[in-house]
């Protein structure tokens, strides 16, 4: 079986700034993969390139057998995406919003309504689904955000800072949901965050980005052992300091 995600020397420059610098990595199907790095490390740009939202300056990338430049639409059909810092349209209800998103997949009618009925209990949205989203808390917004990312039953889920701004209980539920999506439905999940404990609690593998470069990559336990670290924070700081030294 081919890798879920494979990228080779992927680079993105914005003028003089190199946002992503020749990154190569692979992610196996069904894995929860964490992308660590502080703000501006290149995490968001990398995810956007995978979805064809921004074109790579050089390098190649594939999602299953699809090329990230040539097969953008088909890739988006197979992926779910939750961007960072989004704001949902407050004038819509969650149900209307999910139908709206489904229409972008050419999905309509009973099929969509059935899918929405599956997603509502998954995110405990029963009491809110027909209320305007302007009344939602950040945690509720994030749940609807993840629900929209799942509307098409994606094979790959790309999440950019998904737990930012959620309270501890909401975060725990969110991470548990990611685990169940991976183990029960075989969804490959790539999620970026700078909350290192989130990576530690759900990811099997991770990559560390710093100033656009990949400074560490592999199974989390192996990385910790290799660098003599017990905790993620320790590992992350060590990798960054080694790079900047």
């Amino acid at each position: 079986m081919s890798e879920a995600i494979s990228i080779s020397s992927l680079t993105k420059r914005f003028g003089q700034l190199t946002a992503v610098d020749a990154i190569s990595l692979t992610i196996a199907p069904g894995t929860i993969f964490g992308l660590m790095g502080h703000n501006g490390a290149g995490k968001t740009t990398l995810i956007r390139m995978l979805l064809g939202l921004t074109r790579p300056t050089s390098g190649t990338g594939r999602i299953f057998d699809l090329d990230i430049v040539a097969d953008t639409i088909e890739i988006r059909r197979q992926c779910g995406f939750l961007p960072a810092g989004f704001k949902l349209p407050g004038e819509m209800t969650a149900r209307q919003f999910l139908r709206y998103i489904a229409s972008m997949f050419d999905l309509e009618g009973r099929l969509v309504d059935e899918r929405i009925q599956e997603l509502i209990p998954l995110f405990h949205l029963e009491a809110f689904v027909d209320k305007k989203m302007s009344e939602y808390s950040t945690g509720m917004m994030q749940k609807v955000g993840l629900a929209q990312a799942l509307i098409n039953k994606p094979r790959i889920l790309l999440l950019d800072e998904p737990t930012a701004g959620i309270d501890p209980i909401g975060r725990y539920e969110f991470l548990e949901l990611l685990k169940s999506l991976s183990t029960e439905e075989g969804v490959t999940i790539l999620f970026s965050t700078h909350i290192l404990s989130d990576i530690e609690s759900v990811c099997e593998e991770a990559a560390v980005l710093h100033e656009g470069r990949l400074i560490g990559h592999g199974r989390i336990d192996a990385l910790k052992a290799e660098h003599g670290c017990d905790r993620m924070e320790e590992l992350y700081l060590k990798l960054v300091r080694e790079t900047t030294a």
Partner: protein
Amino acid sequence: MTGIIAWPFFRREFSALLKSRKSQTMGLILLYTLAAVPFLLQHPPPEVVEAVESWFNNGSTFVVFVFVWIDLALNKTIVLLGALLSAGIVVDERARNILTLYLSKPIRPESYYASKTAAAVVVFAWWYGVTAIAGTLTLPYRIEGFQPVTFLAISSIHLFAGTFAVCLSSALSQSFERRRSAFLASMLAIMLLVGLAFVPFYDHDLWVIGALNPFFHAISIFSELDHLTYGHVISRILLLLGWNVAAIGFGIHKVSKLEV
């Protein structure tokens, strides 16, 4: 053009837009205009009647009504409605930081833009159509010498000038970062075109300005009201349709370069 429309998304967008507050405001403005114009015509300003007579060689109540209805009422309304309906397309989503989410779906930016613009055009046409039909049914009792068929023919032409305002506003907005700037710039551009539409009637030597102005083609029919043919109507509709397509094409071109 139809190949670029994502139909399920278009239908969803049309339905949401039609039920929106801005669409309902638009319906109210048009219906209010329809109710108010006959009152205005009870005592039309003498300078308006005089101008109509000199431009169109006809100062009948119906011709004065057509001028007041199309130019003084609807053209001014269109300046606002075009921008109201479509100045926020793509710009608004970008400002609210949700464009990335939408464009991560299997819909090309060009299709997203074209489908939303088409939905705005159809919503505009919907309310314009409702107003025209309501006018055809009620105005014979309120306007002396009212000609329903001529009214519908003129409305059919002018409808496409209105949809052009929607398309132009949507296209121009792609050069702006914020909805408010896009809205104001669109209103100014449409206002300028509407304002210049009558220039060739003042001075025939300036016909080139008219030829390049879609709104002129919508009102130049006034001078043919006495001998209106299908040819007059269809040729102008086709011409205005071309302007609509050109405006959408310009917007699509701008959006095709979009990276989020």
